């Protein structure tokens, strides 16, 4: 064990090295690039015995690691934003083929207009693909979650690929202390690779063939069942990781002062830290706020969220993405989960395209919604746009529109 000053991207690279990944392939894109740069360096120095396959696109990058993983290798790729969109077809292929592998997704907004800063639009765009999707809050968790991802993905109860989400720049390019575990301990904790089948020139396995419609239907059911089982596996892996490495994150949802809270914030990603800080400050003035940080958006922790949230006076969801034409994607999950309980709900959409959201902003939004709750007794505000500072009024927004026309 050694504490290093690492960016989130380097934390990913160290975890990949500790997992003894055998094949890496990726295409550069900001803010992902330094993950594979670091891995290239590790391979070049002989610290990691892996093959780095250079490709001409993200579509090929994931196809390469999917092929390598199908052939029995522990394989890894990483991407971001437009790169993730470009590989989207293969994202479905890997999950549908039930091939365990791990991909880091450095969350970044999607253009146009061009932007390299964080939001969760790219990650939520992968919601229905059959990948397990985790999102970390801190660099330490990035390392821990990446290691855990291999174990979850290769568990025979799961056999699905796993994405590890980390926020662009806010984690990817931020240095923070990271406890890097000893290789011996990781070797002991992470079992040798398991997968449902291994292709080789010696086995007559047909991939990508046409299945009867009914069998296709059943395969979707099979993937969905695996997702349901993955909830238990994620909790188990969190506990066993804590036993060996001393760090637990609460499995599917990390609860920060949830138990005695009247107001519950539901959120995911690095800005959860700012939300927790806001919760502490609001508590000091008598507003009892807790934070349920969703660590896995797939499988969706329905049962756990019901336990935590059903009896709260108000549940406020913070989305750093929007399903245009509907609502914030996290809000949609939370509201459908809590529907039977009639819990008061509000959905805040904020921080798109890396717009900075400070703890003061969280406090402002929470206070506003709490006072509305007090006025109305019950609350349902499905979309509450927390516009960037200075653009709260429609007049101001029109001014920008005229300028950019």
């Amino acid at each position, binding site marked *: 064990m050694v504490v*290093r*000053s690492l960016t989130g991207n380097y934390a990913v690279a160290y975890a990949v090295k500790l997992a003894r990944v055998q094949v890496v392939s990726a295409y550069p894109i900001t803010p992902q690039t330094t993950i594979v740069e670091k891995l290239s360096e590790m391979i070049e120095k002989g610290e990691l015995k892996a093959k780095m396959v250079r490709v001409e696109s993200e579509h090929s990058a994931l196809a390469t690691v999917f092929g390598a993983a199908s052939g029995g290798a522990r394989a890894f790729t990483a991407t971001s934003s437009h790169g993730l969109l470009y590989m989207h077809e293969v994202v479905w292929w890997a999950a549908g083929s039930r091939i365990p592998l791990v991909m880091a997704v450095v969350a970044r907004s999607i253009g146009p207009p061009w932007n*390299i800063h964080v939001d969760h639009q790219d990650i939520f765009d992968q919601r229905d693909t059959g990948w397990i999707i985790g999102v970390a809050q*801190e660099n330490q968790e990035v390392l821990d979650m990446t290691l855990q991802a291999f174990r979850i993905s290769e568990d025979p109860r799961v056999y699905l690929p796993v994405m590890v989400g980390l926020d662009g*720049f*806010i984690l990817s*390019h931020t240095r*923070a*202390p990271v406890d890097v575990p000893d290789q011996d301990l990781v070797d002991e904790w992470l079992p040798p690779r398991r997968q449902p089948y291994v292709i080789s020139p010696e086995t007559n396995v047909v991939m990508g063939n046409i299945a009867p419609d009914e069998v296709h239907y059943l395969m979707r059911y099979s993937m969905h069942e695996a997702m349901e089982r993955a909830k238990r596996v994620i909790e188990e892996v969190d506990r066993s990781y804590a036993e060996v490495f001393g760090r637990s994150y609460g499995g599917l949802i990390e609860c920060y002062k949830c138990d005695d809270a009247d107001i519950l914030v539901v959120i995911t990603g690095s800005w959860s830290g700012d939300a927790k800080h806001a919760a502490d400050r609001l508590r000091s003035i008598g507003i009892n706020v807790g934070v349920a940080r969703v660590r896995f958006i797939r499988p969706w922790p329905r049962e756990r969220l019901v336990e935590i949230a059903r009896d709260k006076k108000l549940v406020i969801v913070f989305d750093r993405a929007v399903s245009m034409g509907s609502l914030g994607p996290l809000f949609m999950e939370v509201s459908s989960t809590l529907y039977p309980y009639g819990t008061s709900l509000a959905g805040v959409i904020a921080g798109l395209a890396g717009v900075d959201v*400070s703890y003061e902003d969280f406090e402002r939004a929470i206070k506003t919604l709490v006072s509305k709750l007090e006025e109305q007794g019950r609350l349902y505000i499905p979309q509450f746009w927390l516009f960037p500072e200075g653009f709260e009024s429609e007049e101001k927004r029109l001014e920008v529109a005229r300028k950019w026309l």
Partner: protein
Amino acid sequence: MEIRFHGRGGQGAVTAANLLADAAIREGKYAQAFPHFGAERRGAPVVAFARISDRPIEIHSRIKNPDIIVVLDPRIFDLVNVADGLKPGGIVVANSTVRRVEGYTNYCVDATGIARRLGLVISGWPVVNTTMLGALVRATGIVSLDSILGVVRENFRGKLGEVNSRAVLEAYESARRC
């Protein structure tokens, strides 16, 4: 403790923030260092941030009310309001012999002169990041001189490490209240 670095693309503001965080982590503290990337090009004003604490740091938003600001280029004073949001009683450490911000504790150092003398010049640009860290340590004692020298030697190997260490020491010795 929150520190904001103002520089121009290519001067090393981001590296300065990173090295400061590395030094704090080396001392067993918690730290965070991050850039704010906009449409930066060489020469454009840039900002980088660092937080240092005895407790884990969970805040990730940008620093609005720093305790300390470090200005890597005197001309930045004319381009942006470097003291924006600086806390009362805050400290300004500037690469300048004359520029200061009224109402705060100011430290001046001729970092450009030191960098030029030591040959810390890349493509004609003096790189003053390590120099300014020497001045920052002198002005604030936020980390120890040994910690800064340790991370400088770790990040810059061989002769470059030696030259940068000398830059830190010279700035540490020549930084003055102004």
